[in-house]
């Protein structure tokens, strides 16, 4: 068996007396689209935060491409190819759309200790940034201020920033949250196109999207992994139906 792209081992995290991650052990294989589902408050975002380095786990280890990254800060993980999008849109609202993405290209490809040349004019940064914007379908908005985008466009920008990092592992925290049916379908199509090119962890409440995209699904309930399996098996699991899917499928 190949080495997993992401290996979580005995991860624990609590905030005070509240246990939000309870002994999570999980493998995500290279090229896999791995969905994590579960009710609100199951600890999905906290888990993503621990993988991306924004929250330190109390116990356990995180291995990315075989290397222990548990102690690494988020920026070091990002530069190793671990990229993420946020559930609550996290962009630079005062910057033009293209500069939001160009910054990601700048972080990945070159020195940022350059003090004189005008960064906004650098084709070496703008061309890959434009490509990421085209990929997510908002190239026509490149010169708008990011803060002026519609909610759906902001979600697309969020994804463009993550893709511009050329990640090997992409963490997607509810990419469909709060967007319309049509935009969500566009998002699913985009992710389907990306599938296989990189490894993805998808946290999502939109079950149609999850079952359309995921290779495997882990169900998280109160910080614990209830089960991990193929979509068909998870859908049929009486425990999952009782704990979560029952209410979603109605």
């Amino acid at each position: 068996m190949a080495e997993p792209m992401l290996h979580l081992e005995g991860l624990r995290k609590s905030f005070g007396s509240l246990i939000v991650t309870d002994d999570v052990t999980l493998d995500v294989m290279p090229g896999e689209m791995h969905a994590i589902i579960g009710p609100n408050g199951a600890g999905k975002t906290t888990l993503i935060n621990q993988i991306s380095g924004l929250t330190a786990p109390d116990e356990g280890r995180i291995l990315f491409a075989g290397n222990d990254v548990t102690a690494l800060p988020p920026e070091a993980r990002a530069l190793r190819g671990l990229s993420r999008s946020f559930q609550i849109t996290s962009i630079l609202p005062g910057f033009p759309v293209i500069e939001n993405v160009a910054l990601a290209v700048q972080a990945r490809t070159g020195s940022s200790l350059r003090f004189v040349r005008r960064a906004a004019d650098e084709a070496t940064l703008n061309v890959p940034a434009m490509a990421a914007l085209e990929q997510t379908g908002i190239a026509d908005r490149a010169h708008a201020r990011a803060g002026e985008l519609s909610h759906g466009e902001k979600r697309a920008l969020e994804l463009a920033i993550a893709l511009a990092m050329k990640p090997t592992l992409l963490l997607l925290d509810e990419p469909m949250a709060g967007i319309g049916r049509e935009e969500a379908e566009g998002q699913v199509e985009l992710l389907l196109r990306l599938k296989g090119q990189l490894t993805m962890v998808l946290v999502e409440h939109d079950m149609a999207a999850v079952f359309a995209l995921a290779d495997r699904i882990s169900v998280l309930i109160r910080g614990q992994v209830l089960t991990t399996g193929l979509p068909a098996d998870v859908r049929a699991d009486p425990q999952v139906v009782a704990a979560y899917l029952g209410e979603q499928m109605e």
Partner: protein
Amino acid sequence: MTAATLAAASRSRLLRPTRDVALPLLIFLMFALLPLFAWLTAQQYLLDLGARMMVFAVAAVALDLLVGYGGLISFGHAGFIGLGAYAVGILSAQGIDDALVSLPVAIAVSMLFAWLTGIVCLRTKGVYFIMITLAFGQMVYFIATSLAPYGGDNGLTIAARNTVAGWKLLKSDRAFYYVALICLLATYLLCRALVVSRFGRVLRGSRENATRMATIGFTVRRFQLVAYVISGGFGGLSGFLLANSTEFVSPAYMSWQQSGELIVMVILGGVGTLDGAILGTVAYLVAEEWLSGLTENWQVIFGPLLVLAVLFARGGLIGLVSRFWRFGHG
């Protein structure tokens, strides 16, 4: 990718004619012509006042780099001015009075101090950052007051202005004035280039959303430290000029009141514009000069004026200028 999107990708944002070209041109033209005006009207004190404005504007522009572009409110910036000034004063007391030595030393000492304290200060955020920079500023203030061999509380008189490679360039007030003008212009142009450079973009991005910057791979604190060191260096330049202008150094140069005045200058002019820092410095020193001529307790009038300015001139003086410009054009 189509040719059109490629063109769009490398298209530069056009300069805004008023804010980016006309206004700075006007500011520097007025500084350049002030000595002529002073000579024609036989008001020599204007030369002094103008030089003072430019000396503090160097520090204010550097502070705006932190406050306006980095979101870092440094309340100890007068400390860097003081370090630069004392470098000149102490070297002069030791018999070294050439700018070729004292200027690099003034800048290097300030940058070194910024680097050492910045490592500590930047571990904090918000109000704590303000407090800890204030604390370091006060630290150098108290060190200066206890420097008995160099005047202690009373400060230190400098025998003569620095020479430049043995040449008494700064001796004449008018020559000093133009040297200060060149220093301000250089500071302004360097900062202007810096804020739109790759480095400046990371600094501005970190102010807007530090979490996002970290998750795309930037060690935010490292860039903030570099900005702090650069800003401190310009503070040292300002101190070098101040010591040479007054031929005197005093602990008062680095008091927390002086740091507060610098912040007021930046806010009064308009944060995050660089031009605003210069305008704010000019307005502050003009108001001080004019009001202190009216009454000894000029702060009683100046205080309320500041409050009004903050309340009604949102975006500072630069905001007023842009609004008038728009009004005039449509």
